[in-house]
């Protein structure tokens, strides 16, 4: 049982990840590559939701720190996910601060997105989301809900781990993730409604 009374949900690859991290801490480069391949897909998705097209650059900075301080990490595979997400989040917030000092066009221009047109069918909305559409939906949420959803769904953290990354209580993060997903579900359902026939 994790903090906040929520059962700890093991991620499919956490066992393999924990073993790879332990070997990487002993200097095994191939094991570090294994850890990278397990963690990076979710980490990059999380960063895309925060910094848009700059996600790869921010992730690259994060991995510099992760590699540098790997020897100091103590924990299992799930802990490594949380630790890396914490580092990535700090790098992303640093990046956003720099952008506020040096304003530039938003990373994601809504007008440039491939938004579904009036011909979209219910099947299209239900069975697949483009990356751009998914990002637009997430970034339209209140920031606390967006981050909670990304950490829980894309990074794969459980509630307590996501709460530690965000510096909030597990209950607050659980609620934010739930509200965010409900809101996204409503928006997808609305998009899937066929257009009204003109009379």
């Amino acid at each position, binding site marked *: 049982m994790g903090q906040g009374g929520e059962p700890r949900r093991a991620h*499919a690859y956490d066992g393999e990840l924990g073993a790879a991290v332990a070997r*990487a801490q002993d200097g095994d*480069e191939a094991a*570090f*590559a294994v850890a*990278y*391949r397990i963690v*990076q*897909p*979710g980490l*990059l*998705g999380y960063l895309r*939701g925060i910094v848009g097209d700059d996600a*790869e650059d921010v*992730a*690259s900075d994060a*991995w*510099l720190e*992760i*590699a*540098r*301080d*790997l*020897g*100091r990490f*103590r924990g299992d595979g799930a802990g490594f996910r949380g*630790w890396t997400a*914490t*580092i990535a*989040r*700090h790098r992303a*917030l640093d990046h956003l601060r720099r952008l506020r000092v040096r304003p530039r066009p938003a990373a994601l221009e809504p007008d440039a997105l491939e938004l579904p047109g009036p011909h979209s069918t*219910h099947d299209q*909305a*239900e*069975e*697949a*989301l*483009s*990356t751009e*559409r*998914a*990002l637009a*939906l*997430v970034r339209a949420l209140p920031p606390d809900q967006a981050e909670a*959803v*990304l950490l829980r*769904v*894309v990074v794969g953290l459980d509630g307590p781990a996501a709460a*530690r*990354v*965000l*510096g*909030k209580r597990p209950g607050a993060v659980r609620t934010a993730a739930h509200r965010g*997903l409900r809101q*996204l*579900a409503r928006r*997808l*359902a609305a998009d*899937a409604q066929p257009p009204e026939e003109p009379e």
Partner: protein
Amino acid sequence: MTPTDDSAPRPSTAADPAHVAALLAAALRTPHPTGEHHALQAFRAARATPEADRALPRGWDDWRRGEGAGGER
């Protein structure tokens, strides 16, 4: 796919938050991200640097104490 596999899309309605979560994960997770070479270079460089010379990343101490990232500053 087993009933307990919550990582893959499953037949449901668009109004089901669990289904939305599966769609989001599929859309945003990058199966084969680039950058591994860069990460491995960082790993080699870190191995070549004495640990005492490496600075701790911000947030690390918070994580170790289990106090979270401390929120936005």
